[in-house]
């Protein structure tokens, strides 16, 4: 009987391993943002954002300059990878989960090393609006303050005039 139980435990252990692997694969593809252009909607997963390391200085409201290291993707590259062309766009609006929104011009988005979507900051995962969950923050270098660094970024809307 003990042998049967041991075999049963080993089999269940294998099944648990397989289910765990499937579960983790599904987790990696978790949708974190939505890009909207006219009537078209494109989902963005955390995998789409995990592309490059970048760093730079940010200036807070008091004028203090701080250096930070991030993992994420240049917003222009993300839009390009999702087949979104900014040629006819007047700009891009980024909206957070708490409905804070910020507008970027198409020129700002297309500038090298300017607007990024980040998933880690200084080696730590960026938190989502639900405590303990993963989130996305838009990072803007070169602004006089960090007001346009949108936390809990959830929606990117391409504005077409």
């Amino acid at each position, binding site marked *: 009987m003990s042998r049967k139980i041991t075999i049963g435990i080993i089999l269940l252990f294998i099944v648990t391993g397989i289910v*765990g692997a499937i*579960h*983790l694969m599904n987790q990696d593809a978790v949708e974190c943002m939505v890009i909207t252009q006219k009537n078209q909607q494109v989902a963005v997963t955390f995998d789409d954002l995990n592309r490059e390391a970048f760093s730079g200085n940010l200036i807070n409201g008091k004028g203090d300059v701080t250096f930070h290291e991030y993992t994420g993707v240049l917003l222009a590259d993300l839009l390009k990878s999702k087949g979104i062309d900014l040629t006819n766009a007047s700009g891009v609006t980024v909206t957070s989960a708490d409905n804070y929104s910020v507008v970027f011009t198409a020129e700002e988005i297309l500038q090298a090393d300017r607007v990024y979507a980040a998933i880690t900051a200084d080696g730590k995962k960026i938190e989502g609006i639900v405590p303990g969950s993963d989130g996305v923050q838009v990072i803007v270098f070169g602004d006089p303050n960090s007001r346009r660094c949108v936390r809990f970024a959830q929606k990117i809307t391409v504005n077409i005039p």
Partner: protein
Amino acid sequence: MKLKIPLSHLIFLAICIALSLVTKRVISPITNLLTDFLRVPGGGAATAFSLMFLVIATSSIQWPLATAAAGFVQSLLALSMGMGAYQGAFAILTYTLPGLVIDLFRKFYPRRDNAYFSLSCGAANTTGALLTNLLVFRLEGISFLLWMLIACVIGLLGGLLGGLLFHRIERIPEFRRFVLCQEK
């Protein structure tokens, strides 16, 4: 029917309840490594090793509903010591009902072999996990399946370990005399 309970049984049960609570505290960080990695809530895995001591206790003393009673006492202790965590008052249910499952198992499976320990602990832990999900976590789909499978596998393993431990302490003459009430 008047139930006569020897003092040695009460002492042994109290020791097992204390060991059960301490084990849960000690083993939680280790099992959380696994559940954090798999991104499912922790707790269910550590409970298996905690239930192991209740199965040992109530296999040794033969009162009806002893495990449910021990689970109830344990839930009150856990609540008073702030171990109920996210469950709050629901801890009374999630600690007591797995005990009831062990009692039912004990009634319908009178042998005290490794299969009894493993299956009863596995069934009790799975019941606890199911109940916690129903009352607190509300996991669905593959996350729920994984949560239940982890509870079941670790429950079976914990029970098997409990069985091995029980068969070891069963050989101690004092244990046979005072707890199992067997004469020399």
